């Protein structure tokens, strides 16, 4: 059973590389042809079939201050070792270290075409930045459970290397389950073969739920929080009311770069110039691929009811039609983005002392 040993290369920062602490955070790259610090534990876990053939050490500041340049430099130093597998960190909670681990794993897997795995605590900024590109195993805040954290990394790394085990994915790719291998889900969607059809799995789940038995959901439904209804406006005749819309109405030429679908920003337009009382006024554009814009283009009041609101203001029914109209385009926007836009517009509205809003949505 002569199998070639697996060549593993390890990246660590100045502290785990035993060069020094914050005082050495500016140190440049240093290459060693053996495991260093946690690399020794790594070698122990890997056993006899794999060798940690080298370690790259770098100061957290040196790397973090120019991630791209440092990543390229690192690649140049790692390549001659011809590794089969690359391991970085674990970085635990250390932010700069996490960024470096993410960056170096990314460039290694892209350019050398080998699996690269690191480990971080979930609040490490490196997780949010790199989880979509890089396999980041869950790790503790600090090195207290180093062996466990490294074992997770090794298990995932070896699984990524093993072509002989069957993959359950239709595409034939080897993408291990994030739950089984305890890494931060990368946001990948793939079809997989399952022994039971979705109909069977649904009934199994429902039966378990009805019997009060445990079950695991395959997909999580986002929870929406209840918003306490704001207190009603007491004196409408004195109130400032603003108009908001997610119908994608903007200036012709789309200077605010709305996107017809997906996440967006928002803009506020002066009503008097955007919706002139008389004359042709501004040329409009609707940037929204979710509805047919024809009727609104014929008469924008069908979306943003400026005509009747101006009348109500003259008639004293409302105190004032606020002179700004808030516009965005809301077509398949993510919940996160929508919340952000809502909060930002709400903050602006609150700062201006506006009393109420009519938001029209297509």
């Amino acid at each position, binding site marked *: 059973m002569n199998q070639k040993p697996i060549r593993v290369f390890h990246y660590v920062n100045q502290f785990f590389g035993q060069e020094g602490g914050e005082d050495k955070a500016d140190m440049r790259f240093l290459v060693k042809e053996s495991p260093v610090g946690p690399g020794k534990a790594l070698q122990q876990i890997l056993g006899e079939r794999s060798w940690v053939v080298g370690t790259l050490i770098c100061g957290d500041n040196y790397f973090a201050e120019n991630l791209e340049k440092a990543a390229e430099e690192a690649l140049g130093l790692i390549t001659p070792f011809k590794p089969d597998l690359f391991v970085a960190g674990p970085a635990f909670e250390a932010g700069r270290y996490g960024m470096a681990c993410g960056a170096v794993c990314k460039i290694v897997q892209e350019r050398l075409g080998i699996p690269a795995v690191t480990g971080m605590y979930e609040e490490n900024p490196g997780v949010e930045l790199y989880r979509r590109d890089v396999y980041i195993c869950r790790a503790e805040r600090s090195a207290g459970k180093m062996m466990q954290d490294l074992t997770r990394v090794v298990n995932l790394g070896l699984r990524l290397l093993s072509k002989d085990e069957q993959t359950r994915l239709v595409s034939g790719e080897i993408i291990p389950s994030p739950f089984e291998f305890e890494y931060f889900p990368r946001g990948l969607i793939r079809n997989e073969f399952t022994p039971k059809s979705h109909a069977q799995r649904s009934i199994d789940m429902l039966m378990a739920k009805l019997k009060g038995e445990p079950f695991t959901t395959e997909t999580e439904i986002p929870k929406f929080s209840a918003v306490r209804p704001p207190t009603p*406006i007491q004196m409408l005749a004195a109130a400032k009311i603003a108009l908001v819309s997610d119908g994608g109405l903007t200036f012709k030429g789309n200077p605010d770069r709305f996107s017809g679908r997906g996440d967006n920003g928002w803009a506020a337009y002066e009503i008097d110039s955007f919706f002139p009382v008389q004359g042709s006024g501004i040329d409009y554009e609707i940037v929204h691929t979710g509805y047919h814009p024809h*009727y609104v283009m014929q008469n924008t009041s*069908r*979306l943003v*009811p400026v005509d*009747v609101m101006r009348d109500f203001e003259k008639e004293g029914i409302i105190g004032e039609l606020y002179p700004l109209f808030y516009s965005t385009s809301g077509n398949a926007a993510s919940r996160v983005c929508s919340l952000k836009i809502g909060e930002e517009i709400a903050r602006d509205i609150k700062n201006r002392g506006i009393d*109420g809003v*009519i938001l029209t949505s297509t």
Partner: protein
Amino acid sequence: MIGVTRVLRGVSVPNVLGDHELPPEREKALRRKYVRRALELLQKEVTDKQIFSVEGS
């Protein structure tokens, strides 16, 4: 309903506060009716998520 409490059902998706089949004055009267209802909801005490229609006081 995603936690929103004052929702008024509009006329249609591409024509929220209008009706292209009506002559302009009648369409504007329809829009007045809808916006009046919206302004009413701003003055109304609400406790539950619900969708209001333009009918009703």
